[in-house]
């Protein structure tokens, strides 16, 4: 997969800081995500990984720092411009975050509401995307009728439906059994190959990182403590780094 990565930056973070009261979660975190790359950010629970990605999509306002997505400084965007930029980013939530009151198909159609395409084109797009995650038959089911793995697949389909340039995965395998987790990891890889997206994956699942990452960042104490490929980091001597690979 590495050969598909080029040096165009699609996402850039510089010196990102965020505190909640006296709790300094991010202390100057910086990173770049390149086109076609699968970048894994690992960190312990509570290390600020989720806060960082929520700052990225504008769900949380950072205290300071610079965020650029596909060349746009998000702090300078108006709400409508930010909403439009958000359609270029797919986001897979940790708990899937499917809309309870809607069927699987309606969940997938929701991001398409503002597109000026016909209803039949929307249906075709929903079908195609569901097919790519192997859930064509679940179209009319409600989220409450799906298993954890199926929910994650539908959430992934919803994140993909607008054919985003970047997909952000927040703990994609958390809460899944090892077999389903493996299936999701392989699906992520398959999707990356098919849609040629750049992926930012937040996880503490070492298997996920090993299989999918082109590059990794270890987030410790609110900063990027170490950076490199899985092989480089797993063979590092530093105890803090080693703790992730034990």
């Amino acid at each position, binding site marked *: 997969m590495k050969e598909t990565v080029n040096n165009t930056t699609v996402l850039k973070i510089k010196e990102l800081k965020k505190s909640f009261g006296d709790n300094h979660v991010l202390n100057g975190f910086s990173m770049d995500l390149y086109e076609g790359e699968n970048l894994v950010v690992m960190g312990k629970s509570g290390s600020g990984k989720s806060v960082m990605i*929520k700052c990225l*999509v*504008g*769900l949380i306002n950072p205290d300071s720092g610079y965020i650029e997505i596909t060349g746009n400084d998000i702090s300078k965007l108006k*709400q409508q411009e930010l*909403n*439009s930029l*958000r*359609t270029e*980013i797919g*986001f897979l*939530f*940790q*708990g899937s*975050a*499917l*809309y*309870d*009151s809607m069927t699987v198909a309606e969940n997938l159609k*929701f*991001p398409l*509401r*503002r597109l000026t395409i016909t209803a039949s084109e929307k249906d075709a797009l929903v079908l195609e995307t569901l097919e790519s995650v192997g859930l064509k038959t679940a179209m009319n089911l409600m989220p409450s009728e799906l298993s954890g793995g199926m929910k994650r697949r539908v959430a992934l389909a*919803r994140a993909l439906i*607008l054919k985003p340039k970047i997909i952000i995965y927040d703990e994609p395998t958390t809460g899944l059994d090892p077999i389903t987790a493996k299936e999701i990891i392989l699906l992520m890889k398959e999707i990356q190959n098919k849609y040629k997206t750049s992926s930012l994956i937040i996880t503490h699942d070492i298997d996920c990182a090993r299989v999918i990452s082109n590059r990794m960042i270890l987030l410790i104490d609110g900063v990027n403590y170490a950076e490199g490929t899985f092989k480089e980091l797993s063979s590092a001597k530093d105890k803090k780094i080693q703790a992730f690979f034990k």
Partner: protein
Amino acid sequence: MAISPKIVQNLQYFLIEIGELTNFSGQFFRELFTKPFEWKELLRQCYNMGNRSLLLVSVTGFILGLVFTLQSRPTLMEFGAESWMPSMVSISIVREIGPVIIALICAGKISSGIGAELGSMRVTEQIDAMEVSGTNPFKYLVVTRIMAATLMLPILIIFGDFIALIGSALIENLKADVSFLLYFTRVFNALEFSDIIPATVKSFFFGFVIGLVGCFKGYNCEKGTVGVGEASNSAVVYASMLLFVIDFIAVFISDIFFEI
């Protein structure tokens, strides 16, 4: 006299809550008049709130009419004034009892429902997912629900009042052999625009408050599933309290304009 720190803290909390609710309603009015409008979702919410509250409002209204008439009869009979029953019942129900009781019932059903629904959407990140997909969740979830409650409450109240009058007419028919035609003729003779207009106008405000408080509590829900319960519960309490405040203000203003 020293004021207990607990009282000061509660007062502060109350004032902060009022400030946040005011901000929230300010945001509602700003979003209400900006495009795009979520007509489809508004219609869906109107249908949900109206249709799903009909049975409850009907049963409440009917029993209200029955009980009110049954309990008033002995007193009116003592003064030989049973013939005043339709006018007394209709004026009381249309002006005050109907709107307040039905609004309280709707506060219990609609406000708590909105609080629980939006609260659970908040804690399961569904609202965040909506925002990330480029949809304004405030406009889609909050504006539509508040508008639906504002539009549906007057209809539910008018419907509930009518059912209450049917209940009352039934008792009059059974106890005093008054025909339905005679009963409703007396009702319409007794009612004036000064009874109906202020009651209808205030029912729009009741609906607004029920929707606003439910959305405010649910949309700002925190603390996981415990927070959802709290949001639902406090939505009913706050909405009920505010209904009485609005009712008092409405009666006060009606008194100036219509000399009730």
